[in-house]
């Protein structure tokens, strides 16, 4: 009995290796994370993004509707008034402080739905692990869309009229 197995052993090995070599020819499904990342679905609810208008002004007006819509209360917004010298958003009001506690956030997307100006959306970024709780407080600068090079050229000079210019009389 044992003798028979000794003779058939290489055959078994060959059969096992055949499986291995068969899979060698198939496409690779493993991704070399973090160097490579899998594309996320277009409606992925990852970390939030605060958007800008084409001219670089922020869309957020600091209305706090996201903060009140948030079921876990992880958003803090404080508004301030735009001045001709310091214009952050079109119109009168902008968010001076915008913070999200990403540890408390449940990524439900209610903030996105509440936003009347489409200023906040859930973004594609999901790799949010870090080594200290303080690092999970996303401030406005973390979430704002970067001003791209082309945008910076056309970025509104300070003191320019608002995007939705209001005529004096109708």
């Amino acid at each position, binding site marked *: 009995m044992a003798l028979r197995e000794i003779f058939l052993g290489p055959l078994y090995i060959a059969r096992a290796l055949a499986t291995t070599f068969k899979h060698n020819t198939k496409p690779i499904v493993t991704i070399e994370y973090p160097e490579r990342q899998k594309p996320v679905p277009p409606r992925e609810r990852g970390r939030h993004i605060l958007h800008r208008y084409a001219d670089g002004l922020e869309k957020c007006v600091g209305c706090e509707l996201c903060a009140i819509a948030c079921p876990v209360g992880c958003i803090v917004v404080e508004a301030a008034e735009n001045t001709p010298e310091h214009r952050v958003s079109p119109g009168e009001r902008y968010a001076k402080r915008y913070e999200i506690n990403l540890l408390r956030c449940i990524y439900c997307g209610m903030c996105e739905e509440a936003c009347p*100006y489409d200023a906040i959306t859930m973004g594609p970024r999901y790799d949010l692990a870090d080594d200290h709780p303080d690092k999970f407080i996303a401030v406005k600068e973390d979430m704002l869309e970067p001003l791209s090079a082309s945008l910076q050229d056309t970025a509104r000079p300070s003191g320019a009229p608002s995007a939705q210019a209001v005529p004096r009389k109708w």
Partner: protein
Amino acid sequence: MATVQTDQVTLTIDGQSVTVPKGTLILDAAKAINIDIPIFCSHPKMAPVAVCRMCLVEVEKMPKLQPACAVYVAEGMVVKTTTEQVGKYQKGVLEFLLINHPLDCPICDKGGECPLQDQTFQYGPGASRFEFQKAHFDKGVPLSDKIVLDRERCILCWRCTRFSEEISGERELALIQRGVQTIIGTFNDEPAQSNYQGNWTEICPVGALTSRQYRFVSRPWDLDRTASVCPACSMGCNIQLDARNNRIGRFQSRENLAVDDGWLCDAGRYSFPQFQRTGQDRPQIRRDGKLERVTYDEVIAFTADALKASGQVAGWASPAASNEELFLFQRLFREVLASPNLDHRSAALEDAEPDDVTLPIADIERCDHVVVLGGQDVIDAAPVLHLRLFKSQRKGLQVSKVGATDVKKALDAVPAEAQAVGILATEANKKAAVELQEKLQKKVKGSVRRLIVTAGPNGRGAKDLGILPQRGPGYVSLNGTSGKGRVEWPGAGVKALYVHEPSPLHGFVPTDAESMWLSGLPLLIFHRFKASPLDEVAHVIIPGHAFTEKDGTVTNMEGRVQRILKGIDAAWVREDWRVFQEIANHLGASWDYESVEAITGDLVRALPPYRAVNEGARVLWSESR
């Protein structure tokens, strides 16, 4: 609304029968049986105009819908507020209002507490059929340094212009232009100067008139609301302290018909930045000319020992301290330090008497002649008095504003057949007021009463509790043991001064003579809320709570005891009363108050008229004697 006759009228509203006095508006009759009729322009304190058309209801036998805010009830009237036609009209009115109302609720300060938002949600159409460009007007117009006007948001309810005409009588705001181009504004676009502008923001049913100071500060749902009393003057207007993240956002009025009638003045409403805490502050003791930070226990021990060693000591308590603090302050000086040199005043004034409050504020309306001795000075000392006077004047009250010492002119102005005469004067003119009262008493048939406007939200309490050199608590005479008043201290050999200042509005502001004296004084203990120039010469600085940071009671100028509640939390600061208690205990007393309530209880036991605190009523000394 006001009752015209006492006859009762029975009518039916939505199938419910209700009996109300004749001369009641349908709106108020409906309110009496909890039927909600939406309104924008109607205001309980102003005459009906029926311009917004939001309150249209169906009245049987009337061909068209009727405005509930302007139609008086009649016997047998049958009113329906929920029919299909009413609903259609409500939707229509709201759709018309929203045609030109910008939908900028996200940037509007009123958002979240806006009647237009709420009523659109409850009664309005879900969508607009208006597809064209909205009318645009100026946004963010500074109407004054206090108010921002957004003309687009205005729905022309006329509340602010009617306030300006009927309540404050200043006629500063008016409707300009006609039809769809109507806007509100001041004459020639000049800045508004009224002292009652803050009320416009409160009665505005949309976000057209908003406060500059509250601009974009908070949303209504972020605010922690505390019922309190205005810290500015002795009127004692009831306020709601709205704070966000432990910072005061605004003062709103909280109607008390007996005191403020639902209004606030700008001096009080916009006084809150004075009470914002800037950073943490620790007790300090001056050693070798330099202030050094110490702990509360150290500063209390040091203060107690230093006061004891000084011999001749004096105490100045602010008229903005609570009754509980003043009660302990007074006991600390009279009982523990055996010093009668107590004062809360800034100048030499006539002694206070319980008779100074014989005319309650609300009784001004029931007088037929009021003499304002000092004219605008009195109004400046308690601005909301003007609204009460103007309201009464519209009902027939005669008001004579005369110079501060013009007793003769005042005497001539009051007719002999007057039934009820009131005299309003500031503390500084009390002598003339008493003289006028005595002379009028001989001249007129009816009663003559006076109301002396004190300084500070608790100036009356300070007098009641004996923070006076010649009077003890309850105005008892201190024959033989009376002390020196503030103006006499520099020359009286006072070796140590304890200043308690919980409000920057009513602080210890030294006169020139006092400044000289203070710089050479061996010991100045400064127990205060906010840093002030007095810090430079103080030997001991004890941080205390502000008026807005503590519980307690205050007594307004008519003797009404009202509670103030902690709206801002500053827990690292030791309560002022606890500091007094610990100083006293260090000097051998054995006080064991655990809470403000315990002190209030003791205060009521010591001064029985103060039991009025439980009802927010007036302290009546004359009845108890």
